[in-house]
């Protein structure tokens, strides 16, 4: 484990207020999800998951086809599609367009994809003002932090934190009432919306047969971002494409439920090109940035490419016993929780944080709640194997290898296995029932001691199952 990962985990675990905040917020989201997919409300929940999985599988297996179809249809509606391979290309495109149109101010709605490429920082570095408009994201931008959670980005911030951030950065009087804090943000951001030259959004879905971008949100900031400025740029990963508008009936029923337990989010925008002749408002220019940024590296492996089915609902975070303890900022990249643990090593390479796929108990809860049925536990296992294979000979733990070889030998030699079991039972501390937390000297050494410092071992029973079976 890298020192940084280790240290962030320990800081989070030691912070009682933060522990309570994470646990309460994820617990509430989790409960609401369960209520909203209950058989009484959504009887065909499992069929919808199966359908969503099938559509995603089909889309990814024919990704080039649907991207080209999407592109044709966007262009038929007078929009433009721009393929970008990485963060630099996205920033270059936006900056180039801003320069041509003499744009100064950008408003942004929430988008994990733009977080991924640090778009705000890159634009601001070149003198463009870029303002986040989702309340949580706005707070984090003012605090210079990255999202803590895919759908609840500022869940680690209290009203007192927000009061401090607002007084310090916006020079407003200290305000700790949440409604009034929201009103402050509304007022400040309303001016930005009306003055902005460019609106940048993400996309929840790209619809191939319509050339449309679909954006789901609750606050109305994405609607304003895509309506008020004369230029709208949607930034989306290439994996977001689905074949037909009719498939939205399946995905929209799953997305809001899995994310926040709502039947539908407050606003679902289906946007196809700039405003048309006669339409009174809406942007004059419409661009869709299709971002690779490592996604194509996930495609060759049939199991691992499932990671690209993700619709960013955050349900796996809320249900994950590990995320609920170590929180979002312990994770080494913008994506946290189980989905972060499978996406990050594949995008950045397993060497980026080799212990990440191991930060899981493999309990399987993430796979069970995933609305598109990504087999997250299986992918974690494959990534663990990749990590081990990628380690150099010297780095590979010789004792661990030896232990596993001995284990494999025992498992394939039943008589020896039984003998070892009996020896273990005879040597184990005989205080009956309690867990083994330590071993007596001289066994309490080096790797054994380190291993037990993180784990408790059940004592071996006096009689093995085989013995009991024989005496039956």
């Amino acid at each position, binding site marked *: 484990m890298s020192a940084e990962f280790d240290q962030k985990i320990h800081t989070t675990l030691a912070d009682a207020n933060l522990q309570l905040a994470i646990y309460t917020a994820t617990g509430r989201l989790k409960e609401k999800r369960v209520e909203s997919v209950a058989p009484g409300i959504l009887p065909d929940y499992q069929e919808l998951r199966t359908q969503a999985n099938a559509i995603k599988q089909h889309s990814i297996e024919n990704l080039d086809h649907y991207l080209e179809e999407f592109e044709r249809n966007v262009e038929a509606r007078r929009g433009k599609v721009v393929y970008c391979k990485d963060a630099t290309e996205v920033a270059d495109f936006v900056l180039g367009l801003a320069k041509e149109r003499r744009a100064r101010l950008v408003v942004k709605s929430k988008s994990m994809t733009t977080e991924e490429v640090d778009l705000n920082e890159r634009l601001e570095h070149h003198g463009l003002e870029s303002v986040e408009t989702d309340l949580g994201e706005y707070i984090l931008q003012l605090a210079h932090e990255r999202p803590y959670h895919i759908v609840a980005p500022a869940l680690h911030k209290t009203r007192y934190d927000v009061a401090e951030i607002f007084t310090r950065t916006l020079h407003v009087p200290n305000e700790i009432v949440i409604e009034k804090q*929201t009103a402050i943000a509304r007022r400040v951001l309303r001016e930005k919306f009306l003055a902005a030259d460019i609106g940048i959004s993400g996309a929840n879905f790209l619809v191939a047969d319509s050339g449309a971008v679909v954006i789901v949100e609750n606050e109305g900031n994405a609607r304003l971002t895509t309506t008020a400025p004369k230029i709208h740029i949607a930034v989306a990963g290439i994996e977001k494409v689905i074949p037909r*508008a009719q498939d939205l009936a399946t995905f929209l029923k799953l997305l809001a439920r899995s994310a926040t337990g709502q039947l539908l989010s*407050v606003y679902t925008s289906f946007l196809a090109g700039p405003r048309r002749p006669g339409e009174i408002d809406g942007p004059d220019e419409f661009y869709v940035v299709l971002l690779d940024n490592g996604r194509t590296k996930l495609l060759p492996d049939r199991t691992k490419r499932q990671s690209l089915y993700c619709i960013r609902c955050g349900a796996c975070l809320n249900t994950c016993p590990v995320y609920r303890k170590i929180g979002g900022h312990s994770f080494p990249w913008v994506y946290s929780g189980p989905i972060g643990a499978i996406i990050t090593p594949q995008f950045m390479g397993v060497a980026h944080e080799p212990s990440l796929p191991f930060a899981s108990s493999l309990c399987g809860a993430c796979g069970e709640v995933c609305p598109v049925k990504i087999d997250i536990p299986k992918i974690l296992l494959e990534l663990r194997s990749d990590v081990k294979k990628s380690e150099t000979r010297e780095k590979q733990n010789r004792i661990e290898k030896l232990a596993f070889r001995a284990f494999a030998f025992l498992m394939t030699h039943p008589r020896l296995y039984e003998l070892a079991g009996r020896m273990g039972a005879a040597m184990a501390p005989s205080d009956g029932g309690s867990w083994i937390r330590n071993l007596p000297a001289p066994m309490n050494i080096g790797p054994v001691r380190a291993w037990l410092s993180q784990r408790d071992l059940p004592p071996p029973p006096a009689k093995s199952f085989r013995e009991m079976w024989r005496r039956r």
Partner: protein
Amino acid sequence: MSRDNILHRIRTAIGRSAGQAVADPPPVRLHIPEADMESRIASMIVRIEALAGKAYRADTGKNACATVAAAIAGKTAVASNAPYLAECGITALPGVRSGITDRDELRQVCAAADIGITSADYALADTGSLVMLSSPQEARLVSLLPPAHIAVVPRERILTGLDELFTVLPNPAIQTSSMVLITGPSRTADIEQILVRGVHGPGQITVIMV
């Protein structure tokens, strides 16, 4: 160019060649339940009220107009150019601006108005949603900038839900550049998971079904 590189990388990775035919996608899954108009209206009311919105029935357009007039009560309002609002007499109510076709003017009026009044192209009974298609009749900002939104919807436009919507409109992009589903008032729970309504969009929503 990155376009060709990316498409090439995708094809190599998934084992396809350019222009290769595609097997049919899984059949679409659209099931429209049986629901008479009375139960659709009842469901609309339950869902909208559950989201802290207001929902009313009106027997006639005239009654709807009276409900709108009571809601305006001296405040300023902007109405969309939907012919149905004019038919009901709503655009002629005192304090209501309507008939705007210029973008900048619309933006100024909407930013200053207390109430935005629209019709809706459809409504979805099982979620209590309004479906707004952008057109010369319905601008986007009327349902977005003012702090309160009132929608007046003829009852025959109430569909059962998403499945029926995408059956009626298999490809909304043919009709419009923007279709928005509105389900309740604008809201957030970004600070301490406390629900606050009216963040960037309207904090109050009223649906009148005629």
